[in-house]
């Protein structure tokens, strides 16, 4: 909570002349571009994610399993890397359209973020029961009618969640928009901080951004306040994949391959080409140490974040009116705050606290322990929590919401206490959501940059830091090894987790 209080408190500092300057000259651009970016990314990820999720969860076609987990892979591509890659490709083929503009930025970011929508929507589609589908068919609905009138409305919380996450991440993006020359709120925040050396105004801008996001999320939540998305009948009978004609198979495969090709295959091949033919970076033991660091850090942090998310979501379910719950609502918006701002917001309180401890120890015992929180992994993992709690807690919440409260009541009547309900009923039913949340956070942390780079302890390097240092130094070619490793390390959990989600439907 502390970092949010810190951010909010910035509002109480006097507004200085830089605000006038910003309002007069650039605020309109920042606001318009950020809004357009968030809405554009929201729309594109919605289309790409929902369509691919629906096709892969309803129809049977060759390579379905392979395609359905490959569709997740773009998630492991940092957006700025794919932007640089595409500009590189476009530069070598003159006839392609320029992407150094707002639509280009929307496309680039959407290509790597649609998996949020895909994985969540797919999870929701697969959960929908056979009876529901068959009843709709009996009532004479066509495939598309079922999609638009039954499946999609049922999956609305999941789809909206995916779209929101993508839009929030787009808002907080710096590297991609900066490279493509689109001034947004986030580039403005850094311009004010780095360029004008005005941290106060920069934090105030971040608070404003957060407020806008809060309003949007609030409106969406309010609009479905009265609706609970739980199926009353949960049966084990899952839908069988539909068999379709060869022509349709071809169409389905083509549609699924589109986002996959642009978001993953093309940039990945380009990276491999760079890595093998042009890179000066060696695949040595130092490099593999960095790989180990990255995976270890991401795994531990994702695990801790997952545990905290479960707690947070349960507090909400068990006592929705409590104050803790209201606080949690705010905390889970951390995803829309640009990383470096989160970094200062956690750094300043913890460092101040550390200094108090040291002063106390020195005055009493003439002994100093150094920075207990702010110079260690503690602060880094804490900052990850602030930023990524949104992802995992909302993923788990959307899963939990689909379990009706009647189930809990039934269990209670049978004498089960809260913990038993969690262990015996919720946990098995939430497996998909838990794994999904873990996967997204794990991959996000692997490619996370600003927090890791600013808050890490001495001599601790990760793949994303290495990739960014090289790429930002205009050595994208040398950055290719690190970028490839991020993708490869992302594949392992993707395969493992999609196996678990995939096991759900039987082929006819």
């Amino acid at each position, binding site marked *: 909570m502390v970092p949010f209080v810190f951010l909010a408190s910035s509002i109480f500092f006097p507004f200085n002349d830089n605000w006038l300057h910003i309002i007069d000259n650039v605020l309109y651009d920042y606001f318009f571009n950020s809004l357009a970016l968030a809405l554009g990314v929201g729309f594109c990820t919605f289309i790409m994610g929902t369509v691919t999720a629906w096709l892969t969860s309803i129809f049977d076609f060759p390579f379905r399993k392979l395609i359905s987990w490959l569709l997740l892979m773009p998630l492991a591509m940092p957006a700025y890397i794919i932007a640089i890659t595409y500009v590189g490709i476009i530069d070598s083929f003159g006839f392609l359209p320029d992407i150094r503009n707002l639509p280009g930025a929307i496309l680039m970011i959407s290509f790597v973020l649609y998996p949020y929508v895909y994985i969540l929507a797919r999870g929701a589609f697969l959960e929908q029961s056979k009876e529901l589908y068959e009843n709709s068919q009996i009532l004479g609905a066509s495939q598309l009618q079922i999609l638009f009138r039954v499946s999609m409305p049922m999956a609305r919380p999941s789809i909206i969640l995916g779209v929101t996450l993508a839009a929030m991440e787009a808002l907080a993006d710096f590297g991609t928009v900066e490279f493509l*020359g689109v001034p947004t709120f986030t580039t403005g925040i850094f311009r004010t901080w780095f360029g004008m050396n005005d941290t106060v105004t920069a934090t105030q801008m971040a608070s404003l951004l957060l407020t806008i996001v809060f309003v949007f999320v609030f409106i969406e939540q309010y609009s479905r306040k009265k609706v609970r998305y739980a199926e009353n009948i949960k049966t084990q009978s899952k839908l069988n994949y539909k068999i379709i004609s060869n022509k349709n198979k071809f169409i389905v495969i083509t549609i699924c391959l589109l986002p996959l090709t642009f978001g993953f295959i093309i940039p990945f091949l380009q990276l491999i080409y760079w890595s093998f033919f042009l890179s000066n970076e060696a695949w040595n033991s130092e490099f593999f140490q960095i790989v180990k660091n990255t995976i270890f850090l991401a795994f531990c942090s994702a695990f801790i974040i997952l545990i905290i998310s479960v*707690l947070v979501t349960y507090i909400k379910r068990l006592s929705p009116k409590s104050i803790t719950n209201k606080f949690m609502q705010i905390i889970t918006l951390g995803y829309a705050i640009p990383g470096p701002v989160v970094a200062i917001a956690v750094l300043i309180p913890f460092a101040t606290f550390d200094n108090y401890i040291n002063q106390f120890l020195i005055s009493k015992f003439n002994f100093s322990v150094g920075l207990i929180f702010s110079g260690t992994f503690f602060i880094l993992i804490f900052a990850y929590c602030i930023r990524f709690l949104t992802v995992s807690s909302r993923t788990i919440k959307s899963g939990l919401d689909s379990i009706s409260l009647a189930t809990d009541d039934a269990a209670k009547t049978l004498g089960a206490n809260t913990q038993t309900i969690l262990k015996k009923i919720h946990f098995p039913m939430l497996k998909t959501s838990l794994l999904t949340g873990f996967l997204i956070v794990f991959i996000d942390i692997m490619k996370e940059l600003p927090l890791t780079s600013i808050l890490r302890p001495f001599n601790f*390097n990760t793949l994303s830091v290495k990739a960014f240092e090289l790429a930002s130094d205009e050595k994208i070619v040398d950055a290719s090894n690190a970028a490839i490793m991020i993708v490869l390390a992302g594949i392992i959990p993707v395969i493992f987790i999609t196996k678990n989600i995939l096991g759900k439907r039987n082929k006819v």
Partner: protein
Amino acid sequence: MQNTRFLNNYKALHVILILIFTIYPAITSASEVNVYSGRKAKLIKPLLDQFYNQTGIKVNLVTAKSDALIKRIESEGKSSPADILITVDAGRLDRAKKMDLLQSLSNLPVIKKIPKNYIDKDNKWIALSKRIRTIIFSKENTKKNDIKNFEDLANNEWSKRICVRSSNNIYNQSLVASLIANQGEKNAEKLIKRVVENFARKPSGNDRAQIKAVAKNDCDIAIVNHYYYAIMLKSKDVAQRKAANKVGLMFLNQENRGAHVNVSGVGITKYSKNLENARKLITFLLNKKSQEWYATANYEYPVLSTAKTNELLESWGKVILDEEIINQLGDLNPNAVKLMDRVGWQ
């Protein structure tokens, strides 16, 4: 009731974490020096390893954006482990100095060897290498004599012919700051306004992208740092070399104030706990051999006059540099940013 049990678990987790992380900083060896570096690991780590091999002093390194590191030193206050701050532009060092985060280097013998313009006037920081903002021109469409001074870029003949990256970039900010220092804010604003009107396209991409744009005839001249051109000329990638060979490099204002120059530099933090080691490291970074490595690693110019400049850079001839105002770049940076906002340099 059940809620509190969850909360207790949560607390237990915190206690465990705290215990783990308390032990961590305690395991540190005696002879070491801690470096916060805004310069990329690849361009400094090998030198720090050499320092360790020669002296046995272990160098601990964190790299990140200079601004973030300065903020980190500020908030860590007296407990900050940082001994040394390295940044890649003079403005940032100046900022750290103004925030009272650095201490004086005046009794460090090595600074006598460095030209005075490359040392802070209060001896709080010292430059390590020079980077020059230059003009890249298309060999096809432009002659070297068409342009002599930065001021020429405001002329109508360059309408829709100039490429440059975004004004978020520190290189452009300090370029504009140098113009303010030389001509005053009003004149600089008039000048930059006209230059911006001559841009061939909306600023995007990095410095290399601007060089490629000139090679592709998207524009005829570009404003870039000299080393990107050098790196492209020496690249393993045929396409990059080809692009670099289509263009030429020239230095501006050679008959008056000199070309705009910025520096990467170093300072010792106010609360340094390994002061002797920090001083040794700076002395090491400024010896002839280190200077040659440090500069060549990124095709920069060394600050130590006895250190050899890289052959390629040497072949470009002697350059006159706008050195006297380096000390003012930091102060003027916010003015430069606002000026660029006002004239619409995105």
